């Protein structure tokens, strides 16, 4: 497919350089270029197209075709700040044009009103650095609607009594129900809960020149070869390029944000594909590199003027990391579900979104019925724990269970804990000689307790649904994250946050941050919808500032 592509010289001072082309970066690129600005998007990964996508799991899971590569970008992990971190793949994120939106499952829940003001409602929580957002659900609602209509979300408005208010229905009906959705619905209703069609960022009908989902079943981890998954790559990036003002520049690894003597950002320094260092000049810089790489880049940009890292006068850059909590239960049914067909999820339930305080638990969560296995991952991880590992018994179990198994995934809150963080590893370097990303994380005890409570509910639902066999595993401390939230939080107090409600850093007037790092609370487990709504809102705010002349020197 031919697309007009403008190219800029690095010496051209464009209006905005955006680091990252994922859920937020793609939206910002589209909005700002549509609003008349000249934009360069720097993306560390490749520019893959639908034709490059594959169902070959060796390319996806072994060779990391779409995701960060730890052989060149090592990551270290430790549980607490007094430990020495060790090399470990603790973080997985998209590394291609479209970012993590390319390989995600496409669950697209809005946050609820409570997520923005929960601190005011429940007060301080020991061990947590808990705060309200400086914006409300009502501020974000028009942008949630914009995501649904422009990026493309399928769903059924009014089907959950717990849903927050909305100004418009979904643009498309829900995706087809799956066997797991039918039995989940049956189990939930027996227990008095309210299951409903899952809102998914996958097209149930052809729309805007894109094909509808063909139910191939290769969603989680894979790129969609027909463009039905509503990724930045399939939706907003083509719109940005079509303006003739936006250049997507792949294979460019940003190493620092350069500032001048007045403390203003002048552009992004990056390694080009030949590993030559380049400076793309810009009037303003927007980091949308995800909740791990955005804080890392700010810390890498330390200078005499900003010794603790750029935009880090609060010390909050990289802190308060929230990955969401989770638990999983498995069930095997008597007849064939054939859940390998279709998107992973078709029914969810939000009855536990705000748990009764009498339970002694903070926060809450949502449950979905899913089957997110591929044939290989099912054989490795989808069978009951007592199944033989080899031989006729193993093969027989595979043949019987593959078409009859489903999961209930419990997603929930992560409380912000200040020491949970991303920082620079003092010892390990990446292939370009830059300090590696270091993750420090230990779940808040409440989150583990809450997930145990939710896991028990999931097992009850499987019973009520008629599962012949069911199992799950005790909730454990997490050492691996894909939701990268809260690490440059938004707030009104410059001593306790990194950006204001316009996504502008408190310290650098022409530096903006917008991705998972902006979130103040973690919601209940599905952050991408909110990240994109924030990006649409941020683009409006940044456009207004630029048009009033409040960004340029």
């Amino acid at each position, binding site marked *: *497919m031919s697309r007009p592509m403008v190219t800029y010289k690095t010496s051209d001072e464009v209006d905005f350089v955006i680091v990252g082309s994922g859920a937020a970066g793609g939206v910002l690129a589209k909005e700002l270029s549509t609003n008349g600005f000249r934009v360069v998007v720097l993306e560390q990964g490749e520019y893959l197209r*639908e*034709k490059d996508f*594959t*169902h*070959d*799991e*060796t390319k996806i899971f*072994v*060779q990391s075709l779409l995701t960060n590569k730890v052989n060149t970008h090592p990551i270290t992990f430790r549980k607490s700040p007094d430990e020495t971190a060790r090399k470990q793949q603790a973080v997985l994120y998209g590394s291609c044009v479209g970012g993590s939106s390319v390989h995600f499952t496409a669950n697209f829940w809005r946050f609820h009103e409570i997520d923005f003001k929960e601190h005011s409602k429940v007060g301080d929580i020991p061990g947590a650095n808990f705060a309200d957002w400086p914006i409300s659900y009502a501020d974000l609602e028009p942008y949630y609607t914009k995501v649904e209509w422009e990026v493309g979300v399928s769903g*059924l408005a009014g*089907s959950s*009594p*717990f849903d927050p208010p909305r100004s418009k229905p979904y643009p498309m009906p*829900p995706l*087809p*129900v*799956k*066997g797991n*959705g*039918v*039995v989940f*619905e049956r189990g939930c*209703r027996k227990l008095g809960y309210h299951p409903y*069609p899952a809102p998914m960022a996958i097209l149930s*009908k*052809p729309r805007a*020149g894109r*094909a509808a989902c*063909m*139910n*191939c*079943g290769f969603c989680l981890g894979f790129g969609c*070869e*027909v463009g039905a998954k509503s990724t930045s790559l399939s939706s907003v990036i083509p719109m940005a390029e079509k303006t003739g003002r936006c250049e997507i520049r792949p294979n460019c690894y940003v190493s620092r944000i350069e500032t001048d003597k007045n403390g203003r950002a002048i552009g992004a320094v990056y390694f080009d594909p030949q590993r030559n260092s380049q400076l793309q000049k810009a009037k303003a810089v927007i980091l949308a590199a995800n909740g791990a790489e955005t804080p890392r880049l700010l810390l890498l940009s330390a200078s005499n003027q900003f010794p603790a890292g750029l935009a880090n006068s609060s010390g909050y850059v990289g802190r308060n990391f929230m990955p969401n909590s989770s638990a999983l239960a498995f069930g095997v*049914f008597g*007849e*064939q*579900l*054939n*859940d*390998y*067909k*279709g998107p992973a999820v078709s029914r969810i339930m939000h009855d536990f979104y705000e748990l009764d305080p009498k339970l002694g638990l903070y926060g809450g969560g949502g449950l979905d019925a899913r089957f997110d296995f*591929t*044939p*290989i991952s*099912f*054989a*490795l991880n989808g069978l009951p724990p007592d199944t033989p*590992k*080899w*031989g*006729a018994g*193993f*093969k027989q179990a*595979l*043949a019987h269970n*593959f*078409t009859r198994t489903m999961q209930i995934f419990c997603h929930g809150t992560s409380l912000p804990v200040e020491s949970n963080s991303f920082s620079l590893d003092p010892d390990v370097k990446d292939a370009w000689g830059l300090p590696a990303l270091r993750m420090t994380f230990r779940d808040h005890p409440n989150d583990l307790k809450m997930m145990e409570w939710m896991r028990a509910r999931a097992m009850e639902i499987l019973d009520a649904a008629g599962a012949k066999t069911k199992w799950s595993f005790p909730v454990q401390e997490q050492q691996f994250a894909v939701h990268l939230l809260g690490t440059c939080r938004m707030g009104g107090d410059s001593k306790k946050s990194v950006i204001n409600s316009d996504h502008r850093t408190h310290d650098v007037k022409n530096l903006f941050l917008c991705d998972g790092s902006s979130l103040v609370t973690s919601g209940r487990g599905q952050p991408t919808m909110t990240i994109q709504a924030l990006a649409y809102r941020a683009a409006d705010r940044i456009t207004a500032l630029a048009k009033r002349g409040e960004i340029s020197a």
Partner: protein
Amino acid sequence: MKSFDSARREFLHLLGGTAGAAWLTANWPALVSAAEHAHQAAKSEHPALEVFTADQAREVEALAACIIPSGETAGAREAGVVYFIDRALKTFFSEALPVYQNGLEAVQKTTAELFPGVPRFSAATEEQKRKVFSHIVEDSERPESGARRLSPGASPDFFQTLRVHTIFGFLVDPEGGGNRDFVGWKAIGRDPSHGFSAPFGFYDKDYPGWQPVSGETEKK
């Protein structure tokens, strides 16, 4: 079961039913090309070995068949797992090559120790193979400290490595070089078609459509 070509035709038909002609014109040739490539990779029954010798390949094939045996449905042997592993050791699993070299030696030693008259693992009876393989598995699961190794010299990773690679070779999309003619998918009940339409299975075929819970429209 459907042939690959008929599966591809169904895929085309399915897309035709849901997508606009412009989209198909723009994208279909690339999809056909990818599918053809997969087909070529899947239909070559005896690709050239690049890492294993013929003797080693025979032993690895016999070992993989212990993990996923042949029977009423195809097993690791029919799926061409050994050729997948050979190619993987040349490329993306190359760091595992020493595990195989040590593991094969250990298997040979264990076979000779348990069944002195049997020249090699692959020549053993099925019952003998299961006994030798059980020792390899036990060795893999045994804590390293202080335990007497039943298969001296075997890497504790050998069984786990072989198991993971066998599963990959049996169940990978044929584009990845295993699962020849989709026999692995067929053995676990996965229709090799590239796309599907609802209803998908037993439970959703008579689903009447989503209805709100009666009397609970304003729960909040």
